[in-house]
């Protein structure tokens, strides 16, 4: 491929480099995805498990402050 043409891998790598700056994203979710990508474990099952883990962590952290105004 010529230098001017970005390969799919370059597009994906650039996407993960800039992923934190995408407007409106949740940083914890993004960090999980970056971690899965860098470990080459970015699969549907792993994403689902990671999201479930994040959900359970959040639910486990419900406390006094959650009901504050």
């Amino acid at each position, binding site marked *: *491929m010529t230098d*001017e*043409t970005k390969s*799919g891998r370059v*597009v994906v790598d650039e996407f993960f480099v800039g992923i934190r700056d995408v407007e409106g994203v949740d940083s914890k979710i993004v960090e999980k995805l970056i971690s899965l990508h860098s470990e080459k474990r970015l699969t549907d099952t792993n*994403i689902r498990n990671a999201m479930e883990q994040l*959900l359970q962590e959040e*639910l486990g952290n419900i406390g006094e402050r959650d009901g504050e105004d």
Partner: protein
Amino acid sequence: MKIRSIDISGIRGIRRSPPLDLNGSSVLVFGENGSGKSSLTDAIEWYYSDGIQHLVSEEIESTKGRGALRNLRIPDEEDAYIAIQYSNSTLDSKKSLDSSFRTSDSNRSDEFDEYMVASESENLILRYTDLVRFIIAPKTERLKTLQRIIGFGEVADVRDLLKKSAGRVARSIKSANYDNQKNAQQAVVLENLGQNAYTNKQLFAGANELIRPLKLGKAIKSLQDIQEALVTIETKEDTALLEEISFQTRVGERLDEVAGNVDAINASYQVYHRTYTALRKDPGKLGKIQLLALLKEGQSILVNDVVQDDYCPLCRQEKSKIELIAELNERVKELEELEREKDRSDEQGRDLKDALGVNISTVDELLKERGFKEQQNSKLADKVVGVRTALQTLSDELKKDLNHETPVQEPSKVRIDKAGVLALVKKAQETAAALIQSKTSNVQFQIYTKLFQSVTAYKQYQRIDKMQAVLTRQQVTFEALFADLIRRQEQALNSFLTMFSANINDYYTAMNPGERVEDINLVTVKDKNNDLAGISIEYRFFDETKKGPSAYLSESHVNCLGLSFFLASVRAFNKENRFIVLDDVISSFDRAHRTRFTQLLTGEFSDYQILLLTHEQEFFELVSSEVKGKGWLIRRFVWSEDNGSSIEHGVADLRERIQNKFRDKNIDGLGNDMRIYTERVMKEISNNIDAQVAFRYNEHNEKRMASELLDAVHSRVSRKGSGLKEIADIPRLKRMPMFIANIASHDSKFNAGVEDLAVMWEGICETIGTFYCNDCETIISTKYFDSVESKIRCKCGNLAYDWRD
């Protein structure tokens, strides 16, 4: 990477052949039809892809063409093989195929593996039958092809993961109906606390108000304070009553959640039923959807040239393949629209099933409550089971596919009775309230119960609220990331397409200068959801923008476009290899296009090693003349009983072969070689001095005989060249036996001894030598006509003759 040599044995038509030594040079290979020239291309294709596309159809079995690869006449113990030596010798390898069609590579290094993997995405071979594959393919297929070659599969994988994740979370949020669940919990809070509590502050305010009559002496300021207050006022003797109140409260809560979803469920079923019924009403429509796979397979068969002639492979009627593909594309488009309708129905069914599943789970969880085992609650249990049955009935209806013997039931027959569910809610709430009221005298018990129910519902509310917030954040995040990746993918693809289109345009224009096809562009096409759906080919045709080359361009122009696409692909994608194989790609071109194509190869692609194969004598001679002095090798394929097809030095080296035969006193075929040599040179001389020969069509043009050409040259020099006529002495050649012939005797043999032939060869060389300059190695030509002195010259001017009318 360039090729140093190719050695083939036992593959297709080649039984044994000397190696094709190239040393990185381009080569022009001539072979008449049936000479087995394409065996070379087949062997190279098998070497790189482990299969041969055009042979797959000849075998039903899935050996990717290997079954037809081995030459039938090689012994079983002998392997068929192709060995390629490269400019980088560490990659040299030999690929073998034994009689059980097992393959093996001699080079097992990682470097070789990496090279082969990298070569997979490169465009190395083009056959005539592959020329228009990309051009006439449907737009979705074009997108897939390009994305695969660019390596966008990886982007598509990540994109699909993001889309799938966003969709999954969205479905989960929708089916759970968190707002409804939160409302049910707030209803319990309101019932017991006398006010809603969305925050701690509101809860604590309500709780303090509730416990005021007990004068506990401590205000509630935290959830911990509520727990402590509950412990303080708990009365052990009322445990059973408290359990029953909690049970009834939970029944009310859970069924209230279900009731809150009933309207949406009934409405969704109505929509699903409408779509389902419309699709089912026209059985033809469904049948057509089932045809889609077949038509797509047909598309693939035609585009991949499994069927090579112009006929429909199903009805076997004659039909232009390009037209057939256009028709198929149109029908596939219609059916894809139908399929989308069916997908919509399936999606509606799936969403509804998800929602029903959540509610069935809610009821199932509720039915596990111990309270249902109490005698006094048996009727309530039956009614709750009734709710579950209603939900399950609706869910079962969704299992009926469009071909089911009975259709899904009318909405009115399976509608969930919301009023009935709400009546159960009311009954449970009233029972709980009544139980609390039964202890009116016991204020402490009443307060305890209300505080306990309130704080339990409030905590549940918070949990649901949190879950909703987290999942919504997940959905928003996945959707934002998906949109960002799509944007990046489009940017990269468009930037690539701009560059790629410019190259296609350049190559096409180089082969078709001054024609009214301009600005060829590959353009991305989006579907209704704004997703990338394909790539269309646009161009300006007589100043109007058109789409779809097959509609307006002739077959040879479509082929030209295909060739331009291939060459642009080579430029864009071939990173490892600097060689390409072009096998008979110019069959539909006229002479002008062939010339310009050759110039494109020798000019724009001079940095590539080109293996150019042809069965056409005229094109062979044209290219031979064009590549002279440019380092190309000329070879030809010959067929013999012993060796099958094999490669030998070609016509361009004929002079050397003739001289070798004289040296070896081998007169086998020598006369014919001399005739062929003379014909070739005379054709070039005729061309250079504008000798007139009668018009013939291309296919006959290449069969001109030496005698006709000698006449034409003689006639021309007789009129123009004072002196040249005598020196050339063409009539001397015309008297030689090999030139006293007709077309039928082209390959006839005549009996002459080696001495006679040597005399004739001397005469031929003398005649040809009068036209040929040894200094600049060119033949005199009107191109170098000196108008001042009226002389025809060679390129350097050292050889010149008078040239006057």
